[in-house]
């Protein structure tokens, strides 16, 4: 039998091959066939989730709620030292120095990443900005968000912190972070579904032991973090509660 694995579309494109390398490693580690399917956008992936297509998901915090509380997924691990943070950026030559200077009519460029958009809109609340008095332009990628900003097609851009920091020097030199979230307790989590849950303990052991050999370390490097850390059901339930509080 072949199981199905997917990754939240907000992964850094630089790590695209890393997820295929990881999938190959995982199949060997647990002796099962796993097909990795990646998506360009969240809506397409969510359609697959709603059709119960997947047995293993590296999920963003926004989707974790549905997966854990409605689809019966259980947590395995999260990447170490890799919490989800968001940045609102302006052009480097912008006269705006603080969030409070932003005004209604603000033009925002963002992707369809729900976590980032939620965190960034929360950071705009102190200046009475919301979905009703701002103009949102959706972009497919963070690079395009950056370009909209640089080309003065938007006043601010919403970025996942990790992706912002990995933009090219040429692009980043034309931008400036205006505000950055410091939440520290929201992160992606690898979740296993009911169809593969019988392999949970074996997978957990293998994932945590990846740092024990060069091959595992190499795979982790291709993913962009040093190791996995185990995540309990309660850790995930707490994070889901937290996400719930951030939605009005």
């Amino acid at each position, binding site marked *: 039998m072949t199981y199905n694995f997917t990754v939240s579309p907000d992964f850094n494109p630089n790590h695209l091959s890393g997820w295929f390398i990881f999938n190959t490693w995982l199949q060997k580690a647990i002796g099962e066939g796993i097909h990795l399917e990646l998506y360009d956008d969240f809506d397409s992936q969510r359609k697959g989730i709603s059709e119960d297509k997947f047995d293993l998901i590296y999920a963003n915090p926004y989707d974790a709620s549905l997966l854990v509380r409605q689809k019966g997924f259980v947590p395995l691990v999260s990447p170490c030292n890799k919490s989800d943070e968001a940045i609102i950026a302006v052009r480097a030559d912008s006269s705006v120095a*603080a*969030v409070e200077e932003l005004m209604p009519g603000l033009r925002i460029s963002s992707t369809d990443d729900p976590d980032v958009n939620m965190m960034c809109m*929360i*950071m705009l*609340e*102190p*200046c*009475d900005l919301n979905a009703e008095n701002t103009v949102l332009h959706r972009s497919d990628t963070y690079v395009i968000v950056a370009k909209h900003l640089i080309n003065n097609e938007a006043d601010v851009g919403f970025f996942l912190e990790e992706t912002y920091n990995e933009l090219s020097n040429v692009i980043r030199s034309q931008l400036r972070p205006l*505000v*950055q*979230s*410091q*939440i*520290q*307790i929201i992160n992606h989590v690898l979740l296993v579904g009911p169809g593969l849950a019988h392999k949970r303990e074996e997978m957990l052991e293998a994932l945590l032991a990846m740092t024990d050999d060069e091959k595992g370390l190499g795979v982790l490097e291709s993913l962009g973090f040093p190791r996995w850390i185990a995540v309990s059901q*309660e850790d995930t*339930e*707490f994070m889901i*509660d*937290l996400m*719930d*509080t*951030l939605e*009005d």
Partner: protein
Amino acid sequence: MVVDMSPDDLIGEHRKVLLTYHDGTVRQVLVTNVETPIPDGRLIVSRTDQKGIITHVNQSFVDMAGYSEEELVGAPHYILRHPDMPAAAFQMLWDTLREKKKWHGYVKNLRKDGGFYWVYATVIPNIRNGQLMGYTSVRRKPSRTKVREAEELYKTLSQG
């Protein structure tokens, strides 16, 4: 009467106020007019048990409250209650939570140094397998417009 705030910890001129909490505890608090705004991007997170005793706090909570983590964990959440907050606001909070619903509101919190900070707070019950285990509270930086509206409202509730 609980007297756990010390003038030595205060910043600015202060007044003494006696607070009586729902469990009958009477506490003397020391209150200044010094506001500490929440830094941009921070979320203040805490969890309590079913009785409102703090079980978890994040660093932003520690930083804003002015208490150490050791002082906060195990303390009742009302340690943060500012005398300018009307009892009616907290009554609405608990009425909502008893219905196992989410509560939102603008809250003025008391710091250990007698100062205060305003938050937009959200509290939800933590339900596990149908059982209430406690509450999670997340607070974020509020709009000043909303804070002014809340201050005016709370004045009328306190006078009512």
